[in-house]
């Protein structure tokens, strides 16, 4: 019953606001969640500015061909992000699901792909 009410609620809200507005709000909310998860789990190494070894490592790897800062990349794919988080690379270890949950990982992936998705 709860889920039926939920669906009805969403439908009514969509009617009131317009389906595209609801979807846009949901997308914004997902991106916000992805941004927060990224800042919490990733940005300590992959943030901007000095003292971020992940950013330094990627800059050294791509030598200007790609940005060192992950948030500026437009070529990332869900597979690549998932691989890095769950398998690790170089001295970056993998993250357990008690750290980065599957939901967090999906949100982080969407956040990192936001520019690629927008550019389509």
């Amino acid at each position, binding site marked *: 019953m709860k889920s039926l009410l939920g669906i009805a609620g969403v439908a009514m809200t969509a009617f009131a606001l317009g389906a595209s507005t609801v979807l846009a709000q949901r997308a914004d909310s997902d991106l916000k969640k992805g941004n927060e998860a990224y800042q919490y789990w990733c940005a*300590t*190494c992959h943030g901007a*500015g*000095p*003292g*971020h*070894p*992940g950013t*330094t*490592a*990627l800059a*050294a*790897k791509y030598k200007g061909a790609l940005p060192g800062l992950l948030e500026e990349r437009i070529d990332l794919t869900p597979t690549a992000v998932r691989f890095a988080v*769950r398998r*690790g690379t*170089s*001295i*970056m*270890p*993998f*993250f*357990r*699901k*008690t*750290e980065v949950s599957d939901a967090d990982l999906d949100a982080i992936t969407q956040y990192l792909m936001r520019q690629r998705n927008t550019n389509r």
Partner: protein
Amino acid sequence: MAIPPGVSAQNWTTALQQFEQAVGKSWVFTGDDDIALYRDAYSPFWGEPEERLVAAAVAPDTTEQVSQVVRTANRFRIPVFPISTGKNLGYGGSAPNLSGSVVVDLKRMNRVIEVDDKRHFAIVEPGVAYFDLYRHIQTRGLKVWIDCPDPGWGSPVGNALDHGVGYTFGAYRDHFHSHCGLEVVLPNGDIVRTGMGALPGAKTWGEYRYGFGPTVDGLFAQGNLGIVTKMGFHLLPAPEAYQTSVVTVPRRRDIVPLIDLVNELEHQSLIGMPEYSSPLGGLGPPPAELAALLKKPGGATDEDFDQYAQQRNRGSWSCRLQFYGSPRVIAAHLEHAKDRFNAVVSGSAFQDGELMRFPLTQEQLDRVHKVAVGIPNMAIFSIGARTELNPSPSDGHLWFSPIIPKTGEAVLEAQRVFMEAFTKLGVPSMVSPFSMPATWMHRAFIFIMAFPISRTNVAQNRRTRETFRALVKVAAEHGWGEYRTAPAFQDDVMAAYSYNNQALLRLHETIKDAVDPNGIVAAGRSGVWPRHLRRARA
């Protein structure tokens, strides 16, 4: 699906059901992909049969859930291995000593119970990271500092329980020393609190660590008698300002009075953690003239090194002194330090850093050594990660951490002994005549070395293990023992602590058998194995 050693399939199925009832189905991990996340990312056995792998992982959210999980494990004699944030990289990561163990992953227990900035303590759960505790303090504007190790993603509880160390004053940067009170789930599921926490309604759990009667807290650090679920810590009142000054002494033999004087200043609590280096050392290959000097038949003399330093207008040794407090206090301590050096070591030179007042500006934050001012971060990984100077990084590292005395003579001896050992072993030396020890310990040095680990080169890892084990023996022959090591070497290190026919290990085993008769908690941690596995290993 893997099954823990000695456990029947039927009991395993029942135990997993009980784990699920205790913590919820979604927090019991048995799938191959999920349990692979509990491998030691820096394992020296990566991909080899000896690599420590887990059978499952269980992630409780409360002490009561930990107790239920442990009761089930004890009933079915299932080995369990607790982790806090699981970031003990270089010392074992999140993997157990015994393959087939069930990891009790405490990451979900991430509550900051209390922080008091008038009496200066905190009480936290194991899943709290240094980043979390720092954020908790900052968002509330509390006037206390934490003392953090290099990587900020670790757990204050887990780090302290592995005798981890940090960067400010001695009383705080020895993290187990700064702890105050434990809550522990024993192998039978019983919950015990130590220190004042043993007194119901105690008002000073985070302040007075002894309570009444024998102190048992140390048994749970690097130990395997229970699972710590809460821990108190003393915190440093936030200082008003911070300043560094680098003292450089000219001659090679000046290392002796340099360290003696810095010891005096530090043990009087006039400075925080000192950081030694040599202006003659550095990353990368030595210049040609220095390389020739290092290859001189019979070895370079002190005079050779002095001449080399003098020609380049450099000193032989430096130490960065760190001062904390009000600007007036800092100025007085710095002046006193200069007086002492000028009186004892001719040619001492000081280079004062900027006096920084808190809160720091962004520009100051970008250049300050953050851990020295209690700010957790991850900058240390810049050393191991890919950089322009290190285009082919390793897949991880292994710390070799022998404790040596805090004297110049001991440093010079350690340089000589380990350089000779590397030559004898036929592997490139990690030590040079300019290597200086780490100073995280308050009353001793760590002559630390990092060995690279590969996820693809088994032969290299094998050589590294052989070298590591040989160095443990070399160190022991000279009265030096490691303070901490990865599970792969814990038996070797414990074997070196052999006074009176391994009396210490025998005591640990006696206690282990009494407190954990089924030997379920962290079997093999620090080389302490339960009775049934001792027999199998004998």
